[in-house]
């Protein structure tokens, strides 16, 4: 048994032993669970995939004379931002796109630029065009504002993603006879390809399946900087079916994360365009897992062949909310480049970069080893299955 406090003392003294979520698999294999638990203090995880419920809020500072954007409108490089706050606070969502983007009018739309790209450009230090209108008040008389802004001049710039880091995700296929364009990528007809989106054995919540160490307040690698778990993510769904090893067999837990955008890096926050679907942000996240006991060590050593997920038809079942699966596959099978669905061999493609996830786990490992990153104690746990916390569909009711 170890405590986070003891591990932090070791980090400060430069004595900490850190392994990535890949390396721990070999270590447990070679040395056994007991020895690996004693030797390793922290295991680092990583993931780098498109995460749509991402965005950032900004305080742009007060102009002279003052303007109140609340109740008005505001665009950054033509991408609309939400300004239903006080005078100069705005929130920019990753999937927002300019009003004059043709969207899917010429199908499939290309979605070349939107909130995700804007966040990447801001972090890269580029000047951004801000255009705003307001209705004017006695205390905030100005009605129009046009200016260049730069990340370094904003008062606050905070990445606040309300759902990231999905614990497992569907494999998407297309059973229809025409090509479809989805958030899981381009899906060729009649099981032409199978797209998945997870770092598997490197992915944070898959290595802590019951949220024993990851909780509200956990300090993480976020977009190349430091962030925190702010809450459970939206659609958090801990009650899905699990294998005996505890790993959910379908999309389950999620995280809401927050961090100072000013210290993040544009290589870990990428504007992303899904053909025929829209714009999003590819986010790099790494979560350290303290190896407090053998049970936690057992979970972090779970490997790709022990992590299963469901194959879902995105031509009919997914859009029509028809539950069910075409079968179950594991990540070793997915990573092999082909899986069998309905007796047919289907080539696979990952939307989430495993090699970048590996880089994140390595980077976080070096931060901890160098004493630059101390672990935090969670201040409250994420809801677990027993809490009854679930993800419900919308129940539509007629308006009189």
């Amino acid at each position, binding site marked *: 048994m170890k405590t986070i406090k003891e591990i932090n003392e070791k980090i400060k003294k430069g004595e900490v032993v850190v392994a990535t979520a890949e390396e721990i698999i070999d270590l447990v294999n070679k040395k056994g669970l007991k020895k690996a638990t004693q030797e390793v203090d922290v295991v680092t995880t990583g993931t*780098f*995939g*498109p995460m749509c419920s991402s965005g950032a809020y900004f305080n742009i500072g007060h102009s002279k004379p003052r303007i109140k954007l609340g109740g008005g409108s505001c665009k950054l490089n033509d991408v609309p931002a939400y300004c239903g706050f006080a005078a100069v606070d705005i929130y920019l969502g990753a999937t927002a796109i300019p009003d004059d983007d043709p969207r899917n009018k010429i199908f*499939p739309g*290309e979605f*070349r630029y939107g909130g995700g790209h804007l966040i990447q450009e801001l972090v890269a230090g580029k000047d951004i065009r801000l255009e705003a209108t307001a209705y004017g008040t006695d205390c905030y008389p100005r009605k129009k504002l046009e200016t260049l802004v730069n990340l370094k001049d904003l008062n606050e710039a905070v990445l606040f993603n309300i759902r990231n880091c999905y614990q497992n995700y569907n494999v998407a296929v297309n059973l229809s006879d025409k090509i479809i364009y989805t958030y899981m*990528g*381009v899906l*060729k007809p009649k099981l*032409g*390809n*199978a*797209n998945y989106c997870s770092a598997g054995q490197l992915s944070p919540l898959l290595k802590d399946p019951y949220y024993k160490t990851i909780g509200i307040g956990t300090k993480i690698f976020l977009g190349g900087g430091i962030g925190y778990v702010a809450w459970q993510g939206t659609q958090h769904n801990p009650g899905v079916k699990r294998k005996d090893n505890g790993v959910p067999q379908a999309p389950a837990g999620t995280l809401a994360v927050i961090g100072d955008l000013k210290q993040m890096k544009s290589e870990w926050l*990428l*504007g*992303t*365009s*899904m*053909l025929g679907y829209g714009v999003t942000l*590819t986010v790099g996240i790494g979560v350290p897992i303290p190896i407090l006991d053998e049970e936690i060590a057992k979970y972090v050593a779970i490997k790709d062949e022990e992590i299963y997920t469901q194959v879902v038809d995105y031509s009919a079942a997914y859009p029509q909310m028809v539950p069910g699966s075409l079968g179950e596959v594991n990540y070793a099978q997915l*990573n092999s*480049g082909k899986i069998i669905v309905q007796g047919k061999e289907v*080539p*696979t*493609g*990952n*939307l*989430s*970069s*495993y*090699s*970048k996830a*590996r880089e994140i786990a390595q980077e976080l490992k070096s931060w901890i080893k160098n004493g630059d990153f101390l672990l935090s104690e969670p201040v409250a746990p994420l809801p677990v299955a027993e809490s009854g916390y679930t993800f419900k569909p919308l129940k539509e009711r007629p308006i009189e």
Partner: protein
Amino acid sequence: MISKRIVLHFPNRLVDQPIVYKLVKEYDLQFNILKAYVTPQEEGLMVLELTGKDENFNKGIEYLQSCGVKIQPLSQDVIRNEVKCTDCGVCVPICPTAALVVDPITRKVHFYDNKCIACELCVKACPTRAMEVHF
């Protein structure tokens, strides 16, 4: 024998003239048209896989050049922007010729431009638009 994938640029004065057929008739070359179109500026562009004896191949290329056709190897025209590519691999099952392959050890995506037929299916399917076409 030699077999190469090449990109032919036809100036607009040549667009209405039969040229490629002479590669077969005079130089005994085989060709497979991978792509062909006429741009709004009336220039012709054709991507060919050209196969034949070395001597005939070189003579055929000389003939095309003497007509005023500009020739580039295909590998210079479809390029992966290494900065933009995240090595995710979602392009891999899209590629019809297995020119994009995930390395099982490094888990990075390799682009074998000698296998590319410039179909451009990967270009818009890439989430970070890392595949670029420079015809």
